[in-house]
């Protein structure tokens, strides 16, 4: 008999409902999920090409084929490793179902190491396939501007600036606000009305980490400026540009801006420097405070204006840095556009200004990214730049890597079809 003389019906019922435990027993799903089918199929085509080339080279030597073979080597061996590991796992699965108890125990012992080797092999496969972004090792500039939505968009832009500052602090990235232009005179309704903010993250590798953030960020909330409690939808655009060290960048390698071949090279002859000059006699006759510097890159018609500091030299330096970054980005965009023509049809949505990439919903306390499809509930942590934001960004990075591979596949297909 029970020690308690009487138990209420509700408690009795509750104890009857077994706590649902979420556990995954020996299934292959989690492992298979580690690598996307697109990646795998691309890897297999490469492995096939590798096999045919090996056969071809066995009969006659060809320098270009040998070179190509070298390029394919790492992927091919990674595929082989992956196949070996997954077939071993399958074998083990069938052994697990056998009636022999001893055999089953032996197989159970082997499952974990095999799984691990699959994870390793797929990681290797991925790194061999996904091209490293050529600017991934660089520091970056994040430019944030309000989009549609007026005041509320400006407020949200301010929130985004704080979010990225928080993220940088958490991730241990060095950063500085290069430009922070607020609309003066907006009555203090909490937060800053940012017109334009440029955050410079000058730790190496920052571009690789943060380039997933480029795009239009949408916010859905009841603005501080709203009196009737209606939810508004506004947007702010985030632009992420690779940046360069100011001067003497010996470690910049090919990106040194004194090298004419580099993307960052800007010929000083192509740049018109406008400084505010007094129209009169100048010198002792006037006493001007204008320190604005405007650089115009004539070939591309890119204009950069800086007037943050009272020191004209400082403005000039900042303007040059910004101009170099913008031009490098443009050059890269041109190159990418050319490639994108090849990749057409792959659905690789480049995160341009036109399409929204993420929504921050205050009402539901939810952040969802429209690219990777991730949904995060912890809005406050995201806005503080905490782990939740890192989770979202990681998912986008994975998505981008997958898209790159998909577009590579499309590129290959495009090439073969055009050959025909």
């Amino acid at each position: 008999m029970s020690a308690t003389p009487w138990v209420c019906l509700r408690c009795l019922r509750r104890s009857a409902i077994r706590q649902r435990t979420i556990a995954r027993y020996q299934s292959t799903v989690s492992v298979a999920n580690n690598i996307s089918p697109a990646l795998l199929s691309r890897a297999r085509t490469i492995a096939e090409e590798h096999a045919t080339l090996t056969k071809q080279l066995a009969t006659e030597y060809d320098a270009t084929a040998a070179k190509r073979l070298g390029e394919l080597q790492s992927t091919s061996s990674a595929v082989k490793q992956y196949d070996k590991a997954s077939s071993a796992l399958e074998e083990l699965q069938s052994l697990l179902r056998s009636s022999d108890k001893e055999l089953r125990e032996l197989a159970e012992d082997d499952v974990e190491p095999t799984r691990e080797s699959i994870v390793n092999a797929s990681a290797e496969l991925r790194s061999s396939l996904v091209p490293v972004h050529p600017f991934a090792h660089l520091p970056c500039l994040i430019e944030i501007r309000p989009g549609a939505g007026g005041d509320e968009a400006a407020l949200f832009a301010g929130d985004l600036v704080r979010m990225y500052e928080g993220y940088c602090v958490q991730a241990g990235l060095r950063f500085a606000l290069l430009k922070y232009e607020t609309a003066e005179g907006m009555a203090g309704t909490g937060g800053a009305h940012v017109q334009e903010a440029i955050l410079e993250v000058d730790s190496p590798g920052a571009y690789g980490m943060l380039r997933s953030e480029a795009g239009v960020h949408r916010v859905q909330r009841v603005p501080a400026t709203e009196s009737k409690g209606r939810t508004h939808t506004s947007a702010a655009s985030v632009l992420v540009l690779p940046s360069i060290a100011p001067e003497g960048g010996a470690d910049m390698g090919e990106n040194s801006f004194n090298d004419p071949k580099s993307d960052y090279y800007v010929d000083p002859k192509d740049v018109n420097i406008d400084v505010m000059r007094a129209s009169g006699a100048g010198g002792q006759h006037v006493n001007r405070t204008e320190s604005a510097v405007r650089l115009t890159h004539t070939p591309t018609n890119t204009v950069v204006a800086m007037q943050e500091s009272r020191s004209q030299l400082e403005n000039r330096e900042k303007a040059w840095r910004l101009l170099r970054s913008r031009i490098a980005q443009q050059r890269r965009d041109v190159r990418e556009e050319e490639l994108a023509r090849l990749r057409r049809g792959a659905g690789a949505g480049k995160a341009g200004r036109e399409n929204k990439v993420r929504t921050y919903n205050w009402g539901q306390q939810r952040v969802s990214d429209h690219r990777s499809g991730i949904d995060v509930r912890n809005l406050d942590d995201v806005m503080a730049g905490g782990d939740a934001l890192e989770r979202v960004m990681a998912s986008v990075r994975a998505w981008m890597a997958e898209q790159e591979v998909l577009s590579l596949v499309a590129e290959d297909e495009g090439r073969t079809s055009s050959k025909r």
Partner: protein
Amino acid sequence: MRLRPSLFWQARALDSHLPLLLPVCRDLQSARNELRWLSQHVDDKCRTESREIHHNLLSNYVRRRAGGEPLQYILGSEWFGDLKLYCRPGVLIPRPETAASTSYLVHRLSNGILKNLLPRNLRVLDLCTGSGCIPLLFHHEFYSSPDHRMSTLELIGMDLSNTAIRLAEDNVINQLRLQQHPSSNGEERLKSLRGLRVLRADVMETSPYSASVTEVLRQHRGLKETPTCDIIISNPPYISAKAFRTTTARSVRHFEPRLALVPHNSRHTDSEHDGDAFYPRLLAIANELEAKAMLAEVADMEQALRVAALAVKERCWEGIEIWRDDPATGRVDTTDVGKMSVRVLGDGHGRSVFLYRRLGAAPLAD
């Protein structure tokens, strides 16, 4: 030019202070910049005070600025090249054109004819130094170049005004404080900055009792014979009394010291060119001190040509150049002054006259 009323409405929508600043700044963007700098200054000045005190102080600053007071006097500082210098009423605010010429002079030292002409270890004299901006920037630029890291540099500034001398000394002390920290600075750099002196002297020698430049320099060095010097730089008062009334900006006329703008002793020249009074004296001092190079700022191209003509008449200067506002752009024109061909460098208004010569060379023949 009249400002459109709509501009004032536009300004008022942004900030209540902006319409006040518009008439002085003349356009919305620079009014916004100045307001931002002013409010940053208020924030720096009283971090812990209440919002109200902040607001009152800012309103006070804006009112002063709206009355035409130069922003640099309100903020108490101005950038001169890479250096941030103190500014105080009673002393001329350093101008960016002066910084451009000074930097260009130092740039020219390490190559071409000046490298052969001048010794490695330089003695530089700045007359009418004001805030001390020229010697300080010369020092900064000189030691920024790797060629000069081991050279010694003697810098002396001279001024008539005690207010200016005090400010210049404060600026030197401030630069010493700022430049002492990084260990990468050379020993010579610090030694030179510590040796920078600002002395009181009267270039025009208005009375028999006033201290002449040569005498002050002789006493400073503790010499018996006449002292010498390698480079003389000067940004003397060069505005004529009439131009002062008609062409100077209101904030300059009402707030900056007349002593630094208009030569106070204009008996030597006719009234039209009474802004030129300092240049004959500067040339005479250059001869007394056997200077090998001289850089003097002027108001415009006409005055530059007049000064160049004076120098041609002296017949002892081997090279005469006129530098424009931004002399480093690479543009070179030539013009004839008397019998000499004068090179005109750079873009903008005529800004300074630069002279050089070989020491001990015989006077140039006709």
